[in-house]
């Protein structure tokens, strides 16, 4: 039986279509050109939850964080003009990390479009390069199908953000609405048998296989097959930054992140491998360093949903474009079981060397609370379900190096765009989505960018533990200045007098300051039990480095593993 059509306004259609598409939570900020949409939200508030952010950027990051931990399409709503432009960084962040998102903006009435009206901006023009697609809706009759198509595009193939701009008169106009089912993603190409065979041939011939997983593998959720292949062909597994949390870190074949700040063993094994099986990775510059020297001795197989990623950054021997999970499981079935004891010995030696390097650095530490001790405490206290969000900088790379993930979709961090100020919004989105304890690891620089969202975390009493890794400087930039700019610390010494404890308290959150491993552990345990947001201002030494490091444009031979070595660069 067909559902009868109901006459509705554009605004009601927006909300009803969101509900129809399975949306239960939206993030946003009201304003003049979305008043009607907010009115419709109010009337549907028993069926859809709206989370009011402190700033549209925070709302966009929250929708992004919500999506990363659930796999659902994140939804954000903002008004025209500044509301819409405030979304831009959030949309770009989602674009670079392939996060499915639908952003809905109001615009001035059609009769005022193009006249530089109050709060008018051509947001479809602005977001053209940072969305998978965008829409300017001119007819209320197209509205529901446009929103459905936006969801379909957002979640199909390589996911990403889609923006829908709706002028106010379209929000008011009426038409018939018939609810439909949740749209399915567009089907992906099936990889040919010949291509799969080519990949299998390379795998069967390999002696040192390295399975290299990225954000694509993490979002598809194929960890079981990846570990099964590693077992079958006696391979190790490494990941890009975006691939963290796809494989349980306790799995012995998992070497962790490789690349600019990768784990020593993972980066070295990537270099030594004679076969790299890239799964949903785009071989970004941060992962490869100098592409002319990257993995010269290795054959490369690349599986990706996005055809434009094959051969984009690194020429590959076999490119498999389409559904990566399906291609991967076909490879798994067809390849021969193998044993590579020499490769495993080599990996064991690399792991031992990696540990020796990091232990050595730890022994030389002059202050008690080193980043490693900080993260050891976090790992000891958190559980497998704890969500980790970060901002961008040294604390983010330390998180990537030290935090152990045991379940997929427990990590939200801006990889591709590197958005400082991303973390708190993302943590809010993740906490709203799951209700699970969410730890935001941030720096004093990053936190300063969007700390206004503390208001949101407090308003909704979200279970967010905020660890401000506070070194009083913009640590990552400073590290580069130390290494490559003759220690000329241009604008990286903050010299601020911000008291993060008082600040958190002023927002209505609990907080304390610590500077020893013992005090941190105690505070962190307390924070993790606390009902609501809790900030720990964690004082560390400004001269801590993120190591190892491949200098920008350098290759693995240029790896810096100690501060002393860095000083001689």
């Amino acid at each position, binding site marked *: 039986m067909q559902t009868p059509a109901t006459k509705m306004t554009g605004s009601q259609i927006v909300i009803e279509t969101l509900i129809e598409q399975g949306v239960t939570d939206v993030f946003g900020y009201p304003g003049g050109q979305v008043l009607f949409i907010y009115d419709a939200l109010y009337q549907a508030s028993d069926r859809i939850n709206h989370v009011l952010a402190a700033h549209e950027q925070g709302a966009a990051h929250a929708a992004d964080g919500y999506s990363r931990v659930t796999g659902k399409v994140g939804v954000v709503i903002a008004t025209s003009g500044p509301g819409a432009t405030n979304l831009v960084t959030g949309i770009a962040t989602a674009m670079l990390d392939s996060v499915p998102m639908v952003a809905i903006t109001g615009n001035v009435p059609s009769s005022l479009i193009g006249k530089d009206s109050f709060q008018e901006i051509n947001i479809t023009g602005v977001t*053209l390069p940072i969305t*998978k*697609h965008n829409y*300017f809706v001119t007819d209320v009759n197209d509205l529901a199908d446009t929103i459905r198509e936006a969801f379909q595009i957002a979640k199909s193939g390589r996911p990403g953000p889609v923006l829908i701009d709706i002028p106010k008169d379209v929000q008011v106009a009426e038409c018939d609405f018939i609810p439909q089912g949740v749209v399915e993603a567009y089907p992906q190409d099936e990889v040919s048998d010949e291509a799969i065979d080519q990949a299998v041939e390379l795998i069967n011939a390999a002696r040192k296989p390295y399975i290299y997983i990225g954000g694509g593998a993490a979002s598809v959720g194929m960890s079981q097959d990846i570990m099964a292949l590693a077992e079958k062909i006696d391979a190790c597994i490494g990941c890009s930054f975006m691939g963290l949390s796809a494989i349980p870190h306790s799995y012995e074949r998992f070497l962790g992140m490789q690349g600019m700040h990768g784990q020593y063993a993972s980066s070295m094994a990537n270099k030594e491998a004679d076969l790299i099986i890239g799964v949903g990775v785009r071989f970004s510059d941060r992962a490869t360093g100098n592409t002319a020297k990257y993995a010269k001795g290795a054959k490369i197989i690349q599986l990706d949903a996005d055809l*434009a990623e094959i*051969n984009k950054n690194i020429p590959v021997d076999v490119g498999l474009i389409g559904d990566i999970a399906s291609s991967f499981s076909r490879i798994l079935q067809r390849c021969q079981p193998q044993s590579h004891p020499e490769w495993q010995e080599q990996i064991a030696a690399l792991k031992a060397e990696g540990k020796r390097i990091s232990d050595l650095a730890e022994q030389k530490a002059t202050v008690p609370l080193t980043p490693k001790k900080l993260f050891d405490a976090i790992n000891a206290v958190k559980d497998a379900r704890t969500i980790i969000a970060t901002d961008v900088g040294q604390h983010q790379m330390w998180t990537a190096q030290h935090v152990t993930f045991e379940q997929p979709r427990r990590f939200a961090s801006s990889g591709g765009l590197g958005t400082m100020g991303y973390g708190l919004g993302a943590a809010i989105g993740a906490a709203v989505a799951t209700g699970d304890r969410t730890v935001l690891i941030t720096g004093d620089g990053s936190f300063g960018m969007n700390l206004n969202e503390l208001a949101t975390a407090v308003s909704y009493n979200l279970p967010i533990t905020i660890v401000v890794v506070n070194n009083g400087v913009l640590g990552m930039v400073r590290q580069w200045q130390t290494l490559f700019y003759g220690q000329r610390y241009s604008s990286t010494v903050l010299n601020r007098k911000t008291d993060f404890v008082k600040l958190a308290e002023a927002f209505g959150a609990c907080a304390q300051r610590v500077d020893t491993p013992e005090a941190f552990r105690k505070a962190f345990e307390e924070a993790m039990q606390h009902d609501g947001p809790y900030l720990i201002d964690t004082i560390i030494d400004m001269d801590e480095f993120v190591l190892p490091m491949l200098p920008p444009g350098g290759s693995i031979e240029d790896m810096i593993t100690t501060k002393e070595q860095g000083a001689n660069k």
Partner: protein
Amino acid sequence: MKRYVIAIYVENTYGVLTRVSGLFMRRGFNIDTLTVGETDDPAYSRITITLGGDDYAREQLINQLKKLHNVKKVKLLQADNTVEREMMLIKIPNTPENRSEVMAAAEIYRAKIIDYRTDTMCVEVTGDPAKVKAFIEVVKPLGIVEMCRTGVVALERSGSIME
């Protein structure tokens, strides 16, 4: 640097040309010509682009184009199996010395004089880009008042169609 001709079938909707041309800008591709027009089905337009670049640039461009939601088909036209045409309107001073030269050139190039004034003549030249370029060289010494070219339209020969 090789020259390529790419045909793109797109939905005939608002903003499509911006999306396609925006791609060139942000991926750093340099296009030589771009033409666009409605097809027999008014729901679709066909864009023809000519550009120079290496194999890498060509592959990237085609793959990035395929990702655009409004782009339905993309095809690299095979140079040895493609007819290309472009049209030029070119205005030349109408002086006693020029007159016979222009008329002779128009005759030989099978061009048409489509406007004849006391001060200028306007010639319509149609052909492949090489012919158009050659005509420009011929009339350059006579003085060119102004000119405009449509850019290339192209189809593959025989039954070859875009899939």
